């Protein structure tokens, strides 16, 4: 289960809405071993595409180094789908390289109602998990 503060959920949705129709992506870092997302980091989608996303490699190195220095890990890795449901695509599954992260998908295909779901993706196997939003 992903337990996450309301303001962090709102930040992901706002980012996804702002970049629509391109996919938005980012990370929420948290203390190592806590499984608690805390520090919201918007990443640039180097692809600037409505169907694909990729963290900019230089920005990713900088952010991963910061997390290392802070004893943090990427607790949440999020991205948006702008025309399809919030379920990992085949490419999402083949790239998923952080077995301990919660992969959060936000769909902005409906202009009024967003859809937000969370998954573990380990060795190509997708497992959806409940999302518990706590008031911040």
């Amino acid at each position, binding site marked *: 289960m992903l337990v996450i503060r309301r303001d962090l959920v709102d930040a992901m949705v706002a980012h996804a809405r702002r970049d629509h129709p391109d996919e938005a*992506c980012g*990370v929420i870092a948290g203390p190592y071993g806590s499984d608690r997302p805390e520090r919201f980091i918007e*990443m640039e989608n180097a*692809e600037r595409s409505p*169907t*694909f*996303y*990729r*963290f900019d*490699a*230089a920005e*990713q*190195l900088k952010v*991963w180094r910061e997390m290392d220095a802070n004893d943090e890990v990427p607790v949440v*890795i999020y*991205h948006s789908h702008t025309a399809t449901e919030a379920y*990992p*695509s*085949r*490419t*999402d*599954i*083949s*790239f*998923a*390289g*952080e*077995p*301990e992260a919660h992969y959060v998908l936000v769909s902005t295909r409906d202009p009024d109602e967003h859809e937000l779901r969370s998954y573990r993706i380990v060795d190509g196997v997708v497992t959806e998990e409940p999302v518990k939003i706590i008031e911040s």
Partner: protein
Amino acid sequence: MAVTVSIPTILRTHTGGEKSVSASGTTLAEIIDDLENNHGGLKARLVKEGTLHRFVNVYVNDEDVRFSGGLAAEVKDGDNVTILPAVAGG
């Protein structure tokens, strides 16, 4: 020529859980061959058909090797090689 290589979580099964290991070589290709000798299975996770796998980013110091020759990128004694899973999808 020894360099330090940072290993991401997903590849640490090949290094007995170690976060960083040392390797030697003068190019990234040699470093990866040396890694493979000591930590079998790593090479297949990094290289496909003679080029770096698109699922990983490899940096020598702070430079993404995609812009500095890929597997032919030169490494010097004391350099830091960092491997990160590319974060991407559709």
